[in-house]
């Protein structure tokens, strides 16, 4: 099908985009269009006005600073994926991006658009949550930042107000001694995850886990921290038994209902297996780091 009629505006600045958004309650931001145009083609979305933000100067910048990787709202997935500076401080980004759709879609889709779209099975929201990142927003009342923990509310719903533009997202750098890993199961590489898990693990010189952070997507209505699995790992040795234990604990976080793609039981099985795998991999990287 074809989209319903809308007004098209190409914003020249963040301020103009915010004004255009505030003027019309039916307005939506157009970034890469890789989710929005598909929804419009099926008339699942029928915005009265689209505000194209991709030509706003400076919004396509990636800045790697002490706080981490700051990704402007017009940065395409593929640009971030290939950015060596970003990879150097946060290798989870590149590892996860390889699973976001396919190259032609990553060439157009934006990272911040993916965060704002907030599909419960999307990879980049998981990564933002895992590294304790945040989203920066600009609205008629000024700007604010929302930590990932609060930004994702449920499938396709965020804490962003409808008159706010997300201007950038910041993915903090990983601690230099941290091990990391990301694993996903999908029917076909590039499909949304049936389940995916990411891990950041730090160990002391004796191989004991000093800090473990785990997050998953595809298993709930939003990306979730695997708190019970993190607790199972804390203070223990990073061996196969601990990884398996973390996997069992991770499975208790699955609260997605059976759907056309997978049953909840199958998702529990997947998240346990993926957690076991990423814990082992991240711990091995962390041990190599402390050697």
């Amino acid at each position: 099908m074809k989209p319903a009629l809308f007004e098209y505006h190409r914003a020249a600045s963040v301020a103009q985009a915010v004004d255009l958004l505030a003027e019309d309650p039916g307005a939506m931001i157009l970034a890469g269009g890789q989710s929005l145009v598909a929804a419009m083609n099926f008339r699942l979305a029928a915005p009265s006005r689209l505000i194209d933000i991709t030509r706003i100067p400076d919004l396509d910048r990636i800045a790697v600073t002490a706080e981490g990787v700051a990704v402007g709202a017009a940065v395409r997935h593929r640009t971030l994926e290939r950015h060596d500076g970003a990879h150097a401080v946060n290798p989870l980004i590149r590892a996860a991006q390889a699973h976001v759709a396919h190259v032609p879609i990553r060439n157009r889709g934006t990272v911040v658009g993916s965060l704002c779209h907030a599909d419960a099975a999307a990879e980049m929201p998981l990564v933002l949550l895992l590294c304790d990142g945040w989203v920066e927003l600009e609205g008629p009342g000024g700007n604010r930042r929302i930590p990932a923990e609060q930004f994702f509310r449920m499938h396709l719903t965020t804490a962003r107000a409808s008159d706010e533009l997300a201007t950038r997202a910041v993915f903090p750098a990983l601690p230099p001694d941290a091990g990391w890993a990301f694993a996903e199961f999908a029917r076909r590489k590039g499909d949304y995850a049936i389940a995916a898990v990411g891990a950041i693990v730090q160990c002391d010189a004796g191989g004991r886990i000093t800090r473990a952070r785990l997050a998953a997507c595809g298993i709930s209505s939003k990306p979730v921290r695997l708190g019970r699995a993190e607790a199972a790992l804390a203070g223990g040795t990073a061996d196969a038994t601990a990884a398996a234990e973390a996997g069992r604990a991770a499975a208790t976080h699955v609260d997605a209902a059976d759907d056309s793609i997978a049953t909840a039981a199958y998702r529990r099985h997947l998240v346990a297996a993926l957690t076991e795998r990423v814990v082992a991999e991240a711990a091995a990287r962390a041990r190599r780091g402390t050697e």
Partner: protein
Amino acid sequence: MNARALPRPQIPVNSADPRHAVTLTVNGVEVSREVSPRMLLSDFIRHELGLTGTHVGCEHGVCGACTVLIDGVSARSCLTLAVQADGAELRTVEALADGDAGLSVLQQAFAESHALQCGYCTPGFLMALTEHFESGDPLDLSDEGIREMIAGNLCRCTGYANIVVAVRRAAELSGRS
């Protein structure tokens, strides 16, 4: 790049939609048109420009039949509005063969390897692969690497085996293997 005159289909304009002026380079030729904001780039290419090599399968980004190159990188023309392509350098499958002089290496490899049957998906595969072949990046020519290169394109006929063969053959023909 070969520049050829583009056909101009005579489509009656009886729409009340607003119009936006767009100018872009299509297969080496500069074109300017007035389009409705809701015109998809895929429809612009097919209906406004008469370049029917770009196919439309699903109109929601899944099949890859509509893949074109925008500023040198592959993109779904069904998920891009024509107004978004204003100022862009666009290439469609029509740009690949050098007139009557011959097929591109990828086209030749597809033909030789029986990598197409009905051919509906073929332009999308060719354009997605052209990006990989034109980039300076090393090509991963393992089965898995090739399957990943073509993972964003669906083919209902071939079962993909001969497409994998064709990609490897194209790499051989272009000295990339």
